[in-house]
């Protein structure tokens, strides 16, 4: 069993302008106030935990008009030195696209755009699984935020296989609330979020899935960040923690309660910058 080939370098955006200012998923309630100091403390805690686990963290400057920029997982899809910025479904988040695209362009990434009419919310809705001895397969969620038709376009842009999986539970509105690749054999999987075809697709791809119970899934257990054998999790259910330890992982609970108020956990707050989906794409242009 081999560790993930990615997950050592992350993009994060400080919660300077973060707040629940609108409601675009069932977790968001405008009357629930975010404690800005606590949000900062939690965000700093996640950065510290990532660094302690051996990962680097880069910062995307915050922007007053787009509070959800803090959820960098939705910036887009990284493939080596290439980047496909997200096309957001809700107008509330559409202002993030140009900010993300220019940051990546400034960093020297080649920016490829999806067709204008197709929605896709980046790594929030697409995570790669690389089976032992195989090449990366991008598992891409659709229905609430991303279009199924966008996965075909994504496959063409990236040159890697993309397996669309239909998301069926509104509370698990992004794929990264239902799926977390752990290594080349295992992944956290929340079948509650998928239709029966999606479950079969994941079963065929992941040899040893750790199936999450519904309450575990709804506690954002899958919205975790894997750095080698360390797993930073918003919540570690005892049963899941024991299984992960038995497999040789170190689960670490990182409090991100202020961000859960907006429907985002550890994974949502981070975007892995070292993902390579197709050979050659990591070479500078």
């Amino acid at each position, binding site marked *: 069993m081999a560790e993930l080939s990615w997950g050592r370098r992350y993009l994060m955006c400080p919660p300077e302008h973060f707040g629940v200012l609108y409601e675009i998923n069932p977790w968001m309630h405008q009357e629930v106030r975010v404690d800005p100091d606590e949000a900062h403390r939690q965000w700093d805690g996640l950065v510290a935990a990532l660094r302690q686990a051996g990962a680097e963290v880069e910062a995307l400057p915050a922007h007053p008009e787009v509070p959800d920029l803090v959820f960098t997982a939705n910036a887009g899809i990284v493939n080596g030195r290439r980047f496909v910025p997200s096309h957001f479904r809700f107008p509330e988040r559409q202002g993030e696209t140009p900010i993300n695209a220019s940051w990546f362009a400034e960093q020297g990434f080649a920016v490829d755009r999806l067709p204008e009419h197709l929605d896709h919310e980046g790594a929030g809705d697409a995570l790669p699984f690389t089976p032992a001895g195989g090449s990366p397969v991008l598992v891409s969620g*659709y229905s609430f935020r991303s279009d199924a*038709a966008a996965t075909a376009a994504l496959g063409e842009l990236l040159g890697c*296989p993309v*397996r*669309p999986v239909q998301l069926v539970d509104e509370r698990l509105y992004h794929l990264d609330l239902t799926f977390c690749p752990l290594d080349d054999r295992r992944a956290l999987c929340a079948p509650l979020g998928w*239709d029966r*075809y999606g479950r*079969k*697709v994941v079963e065929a791809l992941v040899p040893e899935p750790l199936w999450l119970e519904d309450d575990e899934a709804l506690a954002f257990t899958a919205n975790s960040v894997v750095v080698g054998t360390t797993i930073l999790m918003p919540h570690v259910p005892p049963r899941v923690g024991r299984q992960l330890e038995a497999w040789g992982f170190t689960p670490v609970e990182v409090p991100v309660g202020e961000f859960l108020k907006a429907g985002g956990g550890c994974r949502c707050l981070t975007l892995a910058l070292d993902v390579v989906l197709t050979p050659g794409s990591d070479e500078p242009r």
Partner: protein
Amino acid sequence: MATETIELTGHIVDSLLLAKVLDAIVDAGVEYEIVDVRIGRTNVDPSQARIELDGDVEVLERLVDELQVHGANRVVTGEAQLVEADQDGVLPAGFYSTTNLLTDVLVDGRWLAVQSPEMDCGIVVDGDRARTIPMHRVRRGDRIVVGHDGVRVLAPSRRRGPTPFEFMSSEVSSEKPKALVVAQVAERMRAARERGGRILAVCGPAVVHTGGAPDLARLVDAGWIDVLFAGNGFATHDIESNVLGTSLGVSLDEGTPTEGGHSNHLRVINEVRRHGSIAAAVDAGYVTGGVMATCVRRAVPFVLGGSIRDDGPLPDVLTDTAAAADAMRVEIPGVTVALMLASTLHAIATGNCLPAGVETFCVDINQAVVTKLADRGSHQAVGIVTDVGPFLAQLADHVLGGRG
């Protein structure tokens, strides 16, 4: 029935998208054929499938919407093919034969709504207008839609919202509470009136035989009937009952045959012919009441269509059936409620000309009439199996008395 083509591309095999789409098609009860499929050589190459769907218009519409969620796109059909008629009264071979449903045709990149939806016609396109055209009205040079390309048929509910008479959406039955049904028909007439719709009455002679004519005349007099279709029989017996007090020689007061009554209707027809028209007979005071006289006085248009077995006929009867159908077509636009009153032949003839969106109530003592109407494509018809005389009495009370 309609046909749609959808296309699915991407990694549709490994992701089970193709399987999912095919399952959804089968679950919807829609026939399908994979007309083209290309499977990617490696798992990186995209695959593509083109699927032709065949099914009920409404089911298909819902299915295609559902499949769009899975990334299956409707393949836009080509433009409607137009062929000039090369002969008067003859449609080009392969002409598109219409239904009574709302229909659009794609011409020069624009969907044109076909005016005057009517079953069993052709579609003629003139500039940016499209309308149905009965075969006999075709003129040489008319541009007629041929084949199915660029034609889409819209299910009535798509544009009309929920069916207004859901209470009677079940099969025709003689076992429904009549008072309730009458109240509901009155309600639909009021609703039609409020929206500016016209109300059509199609009458058979039984309306007169069963004593319903005075009640129908009350409705006409109060402005609740905007147009009336009937034949020689209804008009004749209506006038006979006014002039001689009999219907087909039977006294309407006594219910018994009168002496020499079998010729009463002939004498009445003869006198009206002497006047030249029903209106002239009314003006001259020969006919003083009844449905036809009330129509004349209230300027309610009527169309009397003829048949071979007509006695006389009355001078107003159109004996050229194609001309009669055309005269009916002139009066149909704007009609939103049709009352088919104890008339088999005229009800079916009218049903053939009505758009599917017209709320049609078929009142007959014989259940077979309603079935017949539906079998000939007027699926919107709601059957009310009852004696038309008492029905009209109750309906007039409801509508005029403001009850219900």
